């Protein structure tokens, strides 16, 4: 017995040695090891007999924990707000000891909830939370205006004769956060860096597959080190040459991957941009990113002095923080959208975003190679019914191949309407489907319910005898989709646009040469329509071509569009003027505090 105690104490000692030796890099920059290890002793206290780690089984998901949010109403009386605000700001100042403006909450800081981004350094910004941060840190050649056109940013103006060679005229008063000037060379540096395979940018395809800048793909493939299509005529003139004409280039240039890059190495946790806000300290992973207003910004840097991105793993927790007053703006968990709408009133916002869900058909195999079968399967689904019954109206039934807010979208595709009689007619005329239909989808993404509803519509309205479901975790599911054999039945997928244009919902998913064309759809008419669009004088002149492309799709129905996406946000009482871009990003620079 005594021996056990002894063993335990020795283990404790050994552990504290271990922790002390490891040091603690958790909080921002290297704080002194001694401090932290001392505090760890307290925490590591009773660690004992060095047992193996237990296999734990509480990996069940953390959702649905707090359905009864009605309890949580009436929470935000002002005293609560104050105390929790103080807490968080105290923590902040305690942590990054480089004394930011004032210790207490200076009031003019907005806290905003995000999920941990993969990257905030412009060359690899890829998820919406990364975009939210990067859009404050960086200004590209262009920015997207509220009407979804390209607006001047670093480039004052641009011109092109043929949509293939573009000349961007840059401002001469733009500087990076470190004070160095932004020139045409800064953009070329950024292009070369992003395309370089050594840097492993997940969004490098923006330069080749989307914008189609000449020489970009060669750099990606390791055949060159410099993007030949980007040339600095002088400090304020950048010439970009494309492989093929592309009228949307100014919009495409708003993507962060095309933002300028300063000279030298950049810490990906404290990137140096040229935008209205700049990093305050470093990104504390899984904790927070704090940015402060850039006083030397060339434009109007906007409202709050500082914006604190607080990072959450669980949307439920983020939502609770807003309820408790510890967070100004946050997301709403799907199962709480209805209660949030009533609890937050006009501090709840729902907006349409450029995403959608569809059921794709493997168009190369029987019976899905028959367009009538595909039309029938689409016509038999009551999308509005599913939206009302399952999503409580928080999605929009898809009426076409691009959401209505995308410039160039035509919608009104007759084959997306609910017409059980026509569906049955087409289905029978085409000879129906022998045997069961197998539907593929990824499990755990909240798709089970509506896919089951779709199956029921097929059974009811078409007389399909049996529908089988293959639900897999997302990653293995994608493997199946991309394998040689592919899928043998309808499959669920979604798409989020790269830039605001209907074209971005069409080319990637349906061009016969595209890697994202999982339905293996091939249509010369469609490809020709897209070529027409790309050859058009400007975006608007290309709209008829885009409409043609969508009409071809509506005839052929290579996929059955299902729903267009929405996003929901709630915000606390001490902020106002909360607006959103069509990407679902908050315009944090215009939020008013107090």
């Amino acid at each position, binding site marked *: 017995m005594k021996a056990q105690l002894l063993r335990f104490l020795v283990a404790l000692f050994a552990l504290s*040695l271990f922790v002390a030796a490891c040091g603690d890099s958790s909080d921002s920059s290297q704080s002194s090891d001694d401090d932290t290890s001392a505090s760890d002793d307290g925490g590591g206290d009773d660690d004992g007999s060095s047992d193996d*780690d237990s296999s734990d089984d509480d990996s069940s998901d953390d959702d649905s924990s707090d359905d009864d949010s009605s309890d949580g109403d009436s929470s935000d009386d002002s005293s609560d707000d104050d105390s929790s605000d103080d807490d968080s700001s105290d923590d902040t100042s305690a942590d990054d000891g480089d004394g930011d403006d004032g210790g207490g909450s200076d009031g003019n800081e907005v806290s905003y909830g995000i999920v941990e981004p993969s990257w905030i350094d412009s060359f690899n910004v890829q998820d919406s939370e990364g975009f939210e941060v990067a859009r404050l840190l960086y200004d590209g050649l262009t920015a997207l205006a509220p009407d979804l056109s390209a607006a001047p940013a670093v480039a004052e103006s641009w011109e092109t004769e043929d949509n293939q060679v573009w000349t961007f005229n840059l401002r001469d008063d733009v500087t990076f956060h470190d004070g160095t000037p932004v020139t045409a060379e800064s953009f070329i540096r950024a292009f070369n860096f992003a395309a370089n395979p050594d840097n492993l940018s997940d969004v490098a395809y923006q330069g080749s597959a989307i914008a189609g800048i000449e020489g970009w793909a060669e750099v990606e493939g390791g055949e060159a080190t410099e993007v030949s299509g980007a040339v600095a005529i002088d400090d304020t003139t950048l010439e970009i040459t494309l492989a093929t004409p592309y009228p949307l280039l100014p919009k495409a240039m708003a993507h962060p991957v095309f933002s300028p890059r300063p000279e030298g190495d950049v810490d990906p946790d404290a990137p140096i941009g040229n935008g209205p806000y700049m990093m305050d300290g470093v990104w504390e992973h899984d904790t927070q990113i704090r940015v402060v207003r850039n006083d030397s910004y060339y434009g109007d840097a906007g409202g709050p002095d500082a914006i604190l991105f607080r990072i959450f793993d669980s949307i439920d927790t983020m939502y609770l923080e807003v309820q408790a007053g510890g967070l100004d703006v946050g997301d709403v968990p799907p199962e709480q959208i209805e209660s949030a709408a009533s609890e937050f009133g006009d501090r709840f916002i729902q907006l349409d975003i450029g995403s959608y869900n569809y059921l794709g058909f493997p168009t190369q195999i029987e019976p899905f190679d028959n367009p009538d079968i595909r039309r029938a399967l689409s016509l038999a689904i009551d999308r509005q019914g599913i939206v009302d019954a399952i999503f409580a109206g928080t999605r929009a039934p898809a009426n076409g191949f691009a959401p209505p807010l995308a410039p160039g979208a035509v919608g009104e595709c007759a084959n997306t309407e609910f017409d059980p009689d026509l569906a049955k007619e087409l289905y029978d005329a085409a000879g129906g489907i022998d045997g069961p239909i197998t539907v593929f989808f990824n499990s755990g993404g909240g798709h089970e319910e509506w896919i089951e509803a779709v199956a029921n519509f097929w059974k009811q309205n078409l007389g399909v005898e049996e529908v089988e479901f293959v639900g897999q975790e997302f*990653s293995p599911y994608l493997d199946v989709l991309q394998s040689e054999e592919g899928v043998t039945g309808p499959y669920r997928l979604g798409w989020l646009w790269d830039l605001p244009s209907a074209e971005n919902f069409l080319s990637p998913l349906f061009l016969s040469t595209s890697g994202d064309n999982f339905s293996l759809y091939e249509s010369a008419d469609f490809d020709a329509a897209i070529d027409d669009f790309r050859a058009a004088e400007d975006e608007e002149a290309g709209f008829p071509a885009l409409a043609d492309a969508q009409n071809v799709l509506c005839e052929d129905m290579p996929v059955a569009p299902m729903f267009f996406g929405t996003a929901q946000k709630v915000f606390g009482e001490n902020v106002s003027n909360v607006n959103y871009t069509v990407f679902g990003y908050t315009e944090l620079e215009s939020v008013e505090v107090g």
Partner: protein
Amino acid sequence: MARYIFRRTLQIIPVFFIATFLIFVVVWVLPGDPIQAQFGERAVPENTRAAYEDRYNLDDPLPVQYWKYITGIIFRLDFGESLRTQRPVKDIFFEALPRTLRLAGLAVLMDAAMGIPLGIAAARRRGRFFDNSTLFSTIVLLSIPPFVMLGLFQLIFSVTLGWFPVSGADSWTNYIMPAFGIAVGTMATTSRLMRSSMIDTFREDYIKTARAKGASEGRVLSVHALRNAIIPVITSLGVAVGALIGGTIVTESIFQIPGIGFQIARSIPARDGFVIVGVSTMLVVAYLIINLIVDVLYALIDPRIRYD
């Protein structure tokens, strides 16, 4: 003595290789292409796939991958980097470890502070109402799923009462609720163990002797009985810390405490294999080293061991 240390150190080597190989294989044979997982619903551009395979040796056969990985650890102390963020696993681990230790330590302290007195009190009132109701209530608490209870805590103590921050890992006040939530779950075991150990001790001769000598009940309890009865409880609490280091996934996620379990749990759906393997390997190394030190010190103190 030197021979003992040498022998004991050698024993680490096969354990290290077997453990890390098992972890490596289990993680990488999981279905799902790790590169595709970084791209969501979008097809991986070919050039990018090639760059990934090149950098992370993903196109090598598994044993070769393992060999490259393990030699990186041995010769360069390089535990790999995250596929998703390219951050070194070492950084991720050492950021996460103190938070997890804080949480686990506080949880065990609370567990002890609640479980031990309860156990003692139950032992003294064995078979009576208090004893039975303690058993009943601890088991009820144990059977509530942690995410339900923790969510309820957040609603009551943070949202409604505003006593504690909802989430975060910066300040020690962040750790109180989650640690309490864990302690409530483990307290059932502690109090039961304390109770039975105490009852056993009460039967010992030296307790009878102490009573016969006229020692007060309080003295018998605290000096004679407790000091002996508590040893298995402390051992069990020590084991609990070990278990909690990798096993507080739900709690860490709900309270946004980015500790060890949090990092591993997030990396699994993201197929970020190097984080899972790297963090687990570092835990293995830590356990091995601690065990080694303990055994060596133990042998120093107790000569019988080195002659075994």
